[in-house]
């Protein structure tokens, strides 16, 4: 079998670890605390952290050199994202790994020049404006309209579940430019600064305590130069970005499993020879198997990208495994904890620092965010196995 992680990749990982170990501990700690509280939106410390990485040349390691990257493969990019997640530090997930590469494929020369250097420097943060109250999984039915107005467009409508909108600098926005019955053939993609006149953001607080948003557009003006791809042909950009996004789920479940095992070790249960310890060891053992497989799924996607293939069904497999596993680890972890598992995050008495209960509260999003798992199953069956639609 071909090996994916060669000496070159492991050397890269060692260098990265040395670099991260050498960063200002105060910055790292503040960033980590912020990230654990709400990982989907780097705020003051997270932004400082990403800019530091950008200034030191550690962002966009898999970007081509012509765009200021290190020109490495998707394997290194994956290793880096996993390492950062394992330390609970932000990795610029969507902006660096989905928006940047998509712009490289479908952006104009001017758009690339305008955005790619600033993304790679860690200066920009994109929020993704796809979902609407009446268009979630059925993105082709979105209604927010852009109407041609001179050398630009006027946008009116509403987005929902726009996570990160309150901290983002820019919005990656899908809108209808054609007729509704044209479905996905009448959709265009735009970039707009988040502080443009006509944008109103209102918070939606989730049961896990994370913030997402509704975003309203009232005669928002976007210059035509900020359209990504041709008018009514934004769909391929959406699909491209989604494929990159799904592929960059990493080995987050490993972190959740470590919370569980650290708690068990602290409770003296990990090495015991009692019936209770045996049960726990078997449960943790199966999670450990699934965490290993999670890594292999992500690594397969990275390998495919490195070989110049775009993972479709494979990305969906990755996404389902990842989202379900994280939820399962938090759920069965709390089963092992028992009654004390009801103590909420924030209390010094919360087992596993509350990470398992916080994780379980947040976990529904993991299974439907980025495209519901049921849609992913359809993609696997139709694209992977050729089932009729």
């Amino acid at each position, binding site marked *: 079998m071909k090996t994916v992680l060669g000496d070159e990749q492991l050397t890269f990982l060692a260098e990265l670890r040395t670099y991260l170990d050498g960063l200002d501990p105060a910055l790292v700690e503040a960033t980590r605390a912020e990230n654990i509280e709400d990982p989907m939106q780097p705020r003051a410390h997270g932004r400082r952290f990403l800019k530091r990485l950008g200034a030191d040349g550690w962002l966009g390691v898999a970007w081509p050199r012509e765009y200021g990257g290190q020109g490495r493969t998707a394997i290194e990019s994956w290793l880096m994202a996993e390492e950062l997640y394992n330390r609970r530090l932000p990795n610029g997930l969507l902006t660096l790994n989905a928006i940047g590469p998509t712009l490289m494929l479908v952006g104009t020369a001017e758009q690339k020049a305008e955005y790619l250097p600033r993304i790679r420097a860690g200066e920009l943060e994109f929020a993704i404006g796809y979902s609407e109250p009446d268009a979630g999984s059925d993105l082709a039915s979105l209604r927010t309209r852009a109407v041609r107005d001179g050398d630009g467009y006027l946008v009116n409508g509403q987005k929902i579940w726009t996570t990160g909108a309150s901290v983002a600098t820019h919005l990656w926005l899908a809108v209808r430019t054609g007729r509704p019955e044209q479905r996905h053939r009448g959709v265009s993609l735009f970039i707009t600064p988040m502080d443009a006149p006509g944008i109103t953001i209102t918070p939606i607080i989730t049961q896990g305590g994370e913030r997402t948003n509704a975003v309203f557009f009232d005669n928002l003006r976007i210059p035509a130069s900020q359209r990504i791809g041709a008018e009514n042909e934004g769909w391929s950009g959406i699909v491209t970005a989604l494929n990159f996004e799904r592929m960059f789920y990493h080995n987050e479940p490993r972190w959740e499993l470590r919370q569980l095992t650290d708690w068990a070790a602290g409770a003296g249960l990990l090495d015991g020879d009692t019936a209770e310890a045996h049960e726990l060891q078997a449960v943790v053992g199966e999670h450990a198997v699934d965490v290993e497989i999670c890594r292999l799924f992500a690594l*397969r996607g990275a390998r495919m990208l490195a070989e110049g293939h775009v993972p479709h069904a494979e990305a969906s497999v990755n996404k*389902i495994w990842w989202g379900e596993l994280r939820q399962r680890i938090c759920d069965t972890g709390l089963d092992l904890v028992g009654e004390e598992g009801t103590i909420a995050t924030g209390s010094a008495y919360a087992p596993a620092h509350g990470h398992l209960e916080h994780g379980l509260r947040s976990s529904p999003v993991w299974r439907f965010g980025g495209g519901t798992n049921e849609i992913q199953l359809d993609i696997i069956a139709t694209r992977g196995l050729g089932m009729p639609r």
Partner: protein
Amino acid sequence: MTDTDLTDEEALLAKTARAYFADFVDNTYLNAQQASPLGYEPRRWAQMCELGWTAVNLPERVGGAGGTLAEAGVVAREYGRAAFASPLLQTLRAGTALATLGGGAFDGTLARIAGGGSAALVAPPDRTVRAEQAGGGYRLTGSAVVEWVEQCDDVVLLLPAAGHWVCATLPAADLRDRITAVPSVDNERIGRLGLDGLRLVASPIAPEAARYALARANLLRASAMVGGCEAVVEQSARYAKERVQFGQAIGAFQAVRHHLARMVIAADAARLACNEALTRAVPDADESAIAAVAVFAAGRSYVQIVLTAAQVHGGVGTTVEHILHHHYLRAKAMQLRGGRRASRLREIHQALVVRREGRLW
């Protein structure tokens, strides 16, 4: 989804082996062999030996091809894909264990395997057989259920003793009185081997060396199960496109599509873990933990896949007239040959979580 991580040599070997089995194996053939006195066709055994499969990863000094464990894994995978039964997998496992222990002590047995002989590996996963030092050798207690033990030429015993392991090979003829043929769930033949009081002359082996040799041998069973997973997913997908209900192919129904997608996920999980382990279980990179992960994942996936395939196929999938029934029975049997689920999981816990084996943990 297709394998993209096979080397050119492995892909060629896989293609050859797949074509070989496809040429004669179907449900009728498998049923006929299962009902036959011997359980397999000696003519086919001779052909497989001629093709070099039983010795693909044995050293050249004993007449083997000097290939990799992954190449043996490719052969085992096609064997499992075809649901073919014979001493092939057992012989591959026995030869792999002996060749891994190395040192030349077992070259006689290895040369017999390379010359067309068959061998069975006795290494009960839940340690139902023990070796105790007695006089200048060892005295055994316990029993094991072993595939093809009655039909093979040689028997390889790899057993735990106090603080170390022992390995010995015996002509199967010497154990004839201790073997009771018992019916098997699946089409592989099995025998119960009673070992109480058997005296052995064997040299001690370090536990790590024994664990590593067993991990490599067991990976071949994992690879056979991966082949089974792939065959059943493909068969089910084909059926879902052909079978029409309510005026359309059942694969157009979301409920059926989701079953199929879950089968793909399970098969991918098993294959990726197995391929990773086959790559990493090489000399100087003793990583037994990933091999244990692969064996567990393969067994779990194969069983999950056949259970779902029976649902996708409905009644036609549960009769002896359909090849699916062989996979259905082999899946659970092959999984159980790896021992008790809870015991395997606790070992994996010990290796991955407590000892933190593996490159990225």
